[in-house]
């Protein structure tokens, strides 16, 4: 079962400017900065109270993040839900005939994640996350 929102992700053009902006406007504080696999993107996770927002800036052309930035000018990209059992969530979705972007969870150092295809979720990209 889905337990809570882990984070909301926003695609931005200039991550330094965006991080400064959100910090100044709303009081967000940095949790972690990193560069994604293959140098495809850079991310800035920030928090205020229980809210976690991830800023993502594409670093290369031609990936999903850079297409989103070009087409939409950036903005809300995905919502990440925490679940206790990601395999069960995936099975439920597949049993309903819904598509996932990855049918097997991806292993991250501290979590397993999978993305539900927006076609099944009213055009919302949803990330499922099971934390270790």
């Amino acid at each position, binding site marked *: 079962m*889905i337990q809570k929102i882990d984070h909301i992700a926003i695609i931005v053009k200039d991550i330094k400017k965006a991080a400064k902006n959100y910090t100044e406007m709303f009081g967000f504080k940095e949790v972690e900065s990193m560069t994604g696999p293959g140098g495809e993107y850079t991310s800035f996770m920030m928090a205020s109270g229980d809210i976690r927002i991830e800023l993502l800036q594409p670093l290369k052309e031609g990936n999903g993040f850079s297409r989103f930035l070009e087409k939409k000018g950036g903005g809300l990209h995905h919502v990440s839900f925490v679940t206790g059992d990601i395999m069960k969530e995936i099975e439920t979705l597949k049993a309903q005939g819904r598509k996932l972007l990855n049918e097997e969870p991806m292993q991250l150092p501290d979590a397993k994640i999978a993305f539900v295809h927006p076609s099944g979720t009213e055009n919302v990209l949803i990330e499922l996350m099971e934390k270790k």
Partner: protein
Amino acid sequence: MVKKIDHIAIVVKDIDKAIKSYADMFGFKLESKMEFPGGDRIAANLKLGDITLELFQPVKPGTDLDKFLQEKGGGLYHIALATDDIVKEIKNIKSKGKKMIHEEPIVIPNAKIAFVHPSAAENVSIELVERK
């Protein structure tokens, strides 16, 4: 400071189908569904644990909401962040030279709300909410 995600708003084409989808997929429960006479939308409130989703189906052609559906195919519309002191948040945002859509909070039955202009927040529509 902003403390938690009050809700996430999603624009949908068919609200009944969307309510059923989110119930089937993740177990969201319908709390309320309403249509204001003469209004531009049907709204539904869905809950799962601490997560609240607001679904909007536009009912009038040519409104901003309807344009969002037509142009983007629906999807993530805004995020609402809860604060204890909305007037202080607005003052802080304005002091940074950032634009608000509402410079004075709008009073609704159980809350005060105000929207930050997307140009100030990396193309994200952010609603500030102070609950009573």
